[in-house]
């Protein structure tokens, strides 16, 4: 399972969770977590064994599930932005709010800083390889950058015809890096930077991407509101969802690769307006009965897709989508 997308400025609204059996989809509250501050964004790590969130106070919070109490990690280098990603070996990458391209790589176990990265342009998305070996960074000016987490050195920088990169994803075997670029192309690289192919995402911008667990497919969505499922080996489109009517800023593929969750955002105000689930087998897309403004992250909880919701009273809920 993997998720990815461009940071969206969530409205910060706190809403109740409507866990229910909705149009054939069951939202089941799996965990309730204590959040000392409002959580701006969150991700699941290691199949849901950890939840990591970026707090409104600039600190990082790590929940070792099922314990509801988090550990607070303050980053000496600066406040955390809402852009974060975790990977293998208890590795967490966090972009700094005022760093203009600065990010730190932390050990979620100890909280120690492993690497300090300077991508020299505002970070819009991060991806840590599942083997913990490298970090892919999408920035607002440069094409995708890949940094070696053992040496702290930049391994390679991708290319675009125009502009920079919206988001980036890494396959579960840590062998492939997908770059969703502003020139509306998708470029697939191997982990050493060799471009394997480039393919068109559509006529509009691709904001979100994610690989399936087995790496055979990847999902991409963006400004046109459709999710496209690609064959990883060829770069060809396998299936396309119906259009959501608004841009999609985040996608998440279920562990079995059959469903894709998407965060739909109003193209005028850039506020979340729906959380949807596309069944790639039936082709049906359903709107999940959650307040989209309460969704601060998505990921996996064991074998299910999971949403992380900010609830009232500074609580987080982890809800599985079955």
């Amino acid at each position, binding site marked *: 399972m993997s998720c990815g997308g461009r940071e969206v400025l969530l409205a910060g609204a706190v809403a109740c969770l409507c866990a229910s059996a909705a149009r054939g989809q069951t939202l089941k509250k799996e965990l309730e977590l204590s959040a000392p501050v409002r959580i701006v964004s969150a991700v699941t790590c290691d199949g849901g064994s950890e939840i990591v969130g970026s707090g409104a106070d600039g600190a990082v919070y790590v929940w070792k599930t099922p314990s509801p109490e988090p550990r607070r990690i303050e980053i000496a280098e600066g406040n955390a932005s809402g852009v974060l990603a975790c990977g293998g070996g208890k590795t967490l990458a966090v972009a700094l709010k005022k760093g203009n391209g600065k990010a730190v790589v932390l050990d979620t176990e100890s909280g120690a800083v492993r690497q300090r990265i300077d991508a020299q342009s505002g970070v819009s998305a991060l991806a840590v390889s599942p083997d913990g070996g490298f970090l892919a960074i999408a920035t607002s*000016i440069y094409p995708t950058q890949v940094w070696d987490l053992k040496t702290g050195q930049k391994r390679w920088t991708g290319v675009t015809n*125009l*502009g920079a990169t919206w988001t980036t994803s890494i396959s579960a075997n840590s062998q492939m890096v997908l770059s969703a670029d*502003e020139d*509306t192309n998708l470029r697939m690289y191997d982990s050493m930077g060799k471009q394997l192919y480039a393919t068109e995402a559509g006529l*509009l*911008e691709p904001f979100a991407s994610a690989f399936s667990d087995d790496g055979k497919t990847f999902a991409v969505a963006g400004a046109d509101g459709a999710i496209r499922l690609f064959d990883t080996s060829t770069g060809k489109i396998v299936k396309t969802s119906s259009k959501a009517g608004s841009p999609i800023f985040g996608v998440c593929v279920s562990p079995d690769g059959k469903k894709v969750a998407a965060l739909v955002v109003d*193209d*005028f105000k850039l506020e979340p307006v729906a959380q949807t689930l596309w069944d790639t087998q039936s082709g049906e897309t359903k709107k999940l009965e959650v307040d989209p403004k309460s969704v601060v992250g998505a990921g996996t909880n064991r074998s299910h897709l999971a949403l992380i919701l900010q609830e009232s009273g500074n609580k987080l809920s982890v809800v599985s989508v079955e």
Partner: protein
Amino acid sequence: MELRRRELLAKAVALGVVKLAGNLNPTAAAEAWFQAGKGTRAATPQAELGPFYKRNAPSTAALRGASDPGMPLAVGGTVYNTRGDILSGAKIEVWQTDHLGHYDLEGYRYRAALLADAQGNYGFSSVMPGHYPARVCQHIHFAVTAPGYKPLVTQMYFATDPVFAGDPDKNYTKDPLITSRELVRPVMLKGDPQVMVASTDFELVLETL
């Protein structure tokens, strides 16, 4: 002006006011002087591409339809390189919101791909873009490409934008995405009160690869 400078050099050489080294002839020296004196230009500042770029925009200079609401707008300029040479044939892609701040994601309203003419000039008619809620200022996106040059991705702003409160020098930083004061262009009102057009120029300067 340039011819006068060349003539002046030739005259100065003839009079002995300027002496040429043995490997220079007067014509080559005049041309070198002329080129060195030509206005070099700073590259146009880059800016973010923005979320709603769309490929394959139509080749039209008329972005505004006859019955489109909003203040008619005329934008024009010349494309140069940093040496001051004009770049004819440069491709200029532009896109903007309508007068209410909406981007067209379904079609190509207020989107176009233009080519700089033999004099490096480009121009298009449109409407003054509205305020898009996720951005502070009215703006038009530009993506300019030419073989051998670094693609230029930038945005143009209007000095008349109410956000600047009449003083763009002081207030242009109110929009954190405005990377340079130079991108805020003066606006001239043309025509008569019945058919008023806001006109602005935007010079585009590309860097070599």
